[in-house]
């Protein structure tokens, strides 16, 4: 079930990195129906420019308090507007949208691999699946500025790496992944981040024959499968097709993506 909450009260809004913010709003209907990997579609204007909503993945929910948390990076007009919203003001939100991660698993050894803002949905996923599975995170980015500084609140183990070594190990998430694969048998990998990172992830997971789910992003209009705009080339029933990030995803099995 999707909900339109035109007046979701902002209860917390903090800067947690270079142009990176954490925002928490009240939307019990969304908090209670969401699952890891889904996203919210937020109006980022009081007028007509920007016109369209911005899709942002859910970073966590508090079902009891009815709260939804997102992380976002200011990259354009929409997110610039969002960064100016104050605690006590309201947002117009639709959610929870899309198909999330396959989180209905038990007794598995799972790696969560995130790059930059792609870490956000993995925090939510990790907090849910770490109850019944062994979960380890490998999170990275260019430098410490693009790694959200409130990561330590997560309830599963993780390792950090940056390309310049400004925080965590120096190197790429794929380096840490290779190390981990030497140490233990991994049952599944869930990943979200820039496309080159996901492509590298796919190469490794297919070599090791480890099931991989990736969360993709795209420019969207409707967010609900109406406009067919957020298309990317993938496979449906073994045939090439234009899949829609908003409805068929944003989370896909690696076999559904044309890499």
């Amino acid at each position, binding site marked *: 079930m999707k909900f339109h909450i035109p007046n979701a009260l902002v209860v917390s809004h903090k800067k947690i990195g270079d142009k990176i913010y954490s925002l928490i709003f009240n939307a019990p209907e969304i908090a209670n129906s969401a699952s890891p990997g889904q996203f919210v579609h937020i109006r980022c204007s009081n007028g007509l420019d920007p*016109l369209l909503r911005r899709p942002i993945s859910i970073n966590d929910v508090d079902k009891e308090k009815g709260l939804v948390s997102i992380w976002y990076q200011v990259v354009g007009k929409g997110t610039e507007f969002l960064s100016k919203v104050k605690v006590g003001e309201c947002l117009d939100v639709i959610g929870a949208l899309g198909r999330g991660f396959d989180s209905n698993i038990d007794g598995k050894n799972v790696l969560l691999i995130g790059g930059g803002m792609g870490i956000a949905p993995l925090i939510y996923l990790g907090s849910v699946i770490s109850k019944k599975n062994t979960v380890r995170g490998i999170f990275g980015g260019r430098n410490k500025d693009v790694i959200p500084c409130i990561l330590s609140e997560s309830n599963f183990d993780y390792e950090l790496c940056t390309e310049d070594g400004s925080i965590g190990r120096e190197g790429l998430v794929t380096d840490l992944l290779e190390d981990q694969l030497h140490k233990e048998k991994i049952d599944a990998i869930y990943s979200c981040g820039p496309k080159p990172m996901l492509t590298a992830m796919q190469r490794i997971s297919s070599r090791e024959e480890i099931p991989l789910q990736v969360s993709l992003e795209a420019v969207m209009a409707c967010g*609900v499968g109406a406009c*067919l*705009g957020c*298309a990317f080339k993938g496979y449906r029933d073994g045939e090439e097709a*234009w899949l829609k990030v908003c409805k068929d995803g944003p989370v896909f099995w690696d076999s559904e993506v044309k890499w």
Partner: protein
Amino acid sequence: MKEVKLSVDVAGIQMKNPVMTASGTFGFGEVYEDFFSNELLGAMVVKGVTLKARKGNSAPRLVETPAGLINSIGLENPGVKVVLQELLPSLKKYDVPVIVNISGNVVEEYGELAGLLSSSSVVKGLEVNISCPNVKEGGMAFGSSPEMAAKVIREVKKSTNLPVIAKLSPNVTNVVEIALAVEEAGADAISLINTLLGMVIDIKRKKPVLGNIMGGLSGPAVRPVAVRMVWQVAQRVKVPVIGMGGISTAEDALQFIMAGATAVAIGTGQFVNPCCCVDVIKGLEDFCRKNGIKNINDLRGVAWNE
């Protein structure tokens, strides 16, 4: 004040209010069900249908512009067979007229589509798309010449008894000329406008943003053009006009009605506000009540009065 009469008659299609969905923005009626009941709509115009399945255009298919959106979806749809067998039957449960938008590569395909869709008891009208800017063959090419436009409409009229609505393109020199030609050819109503052909260039990549280079501009940015065209066409044709282009509020819809539209359709506005259609319906009723208007039909074309 008592009840306001919002119901309208578009070429024999009885609608409880003048608000329709615009083709290609509402799927086959399933996408906005979580937000409002389809029953509230005046009519449902479903995604454009072609004879054979179409995979659609390459990505990126969308680019946002100031107060607007350019799309190049390319009529992605599963083809008329699947639409008839799998998608339309589920719309039977709604007490709302369903209008199917059709597109062909050649004139004969429009006729074939019209014939096939007439067999469905769900379909209450056909909207003939002679204005899609996003396909190589057919589409806008048919809607750019009065002779071709008339030819397509005659072909469709030959193949169906359903009301036939011609959806016109704004990408023409003289929209009135096309409107008169389709009316003469037997169109029972006219929809306008389809999207305006446009493009955006990514100056970093030094390339067009859209995979298909050009696309159709919609949203509030196009509204003044749409209102102007409805104004011009509605004064010259006898058949009802359905106005669309950038409607997101009741005030926007009222401009079209005052310009001469019998009904209006909402598309991009629905992407921004998933309850846009029902908000507009409610806003129309409120406007009428506040202004002592008993029947929405009394507002049609009032702006023509000197």
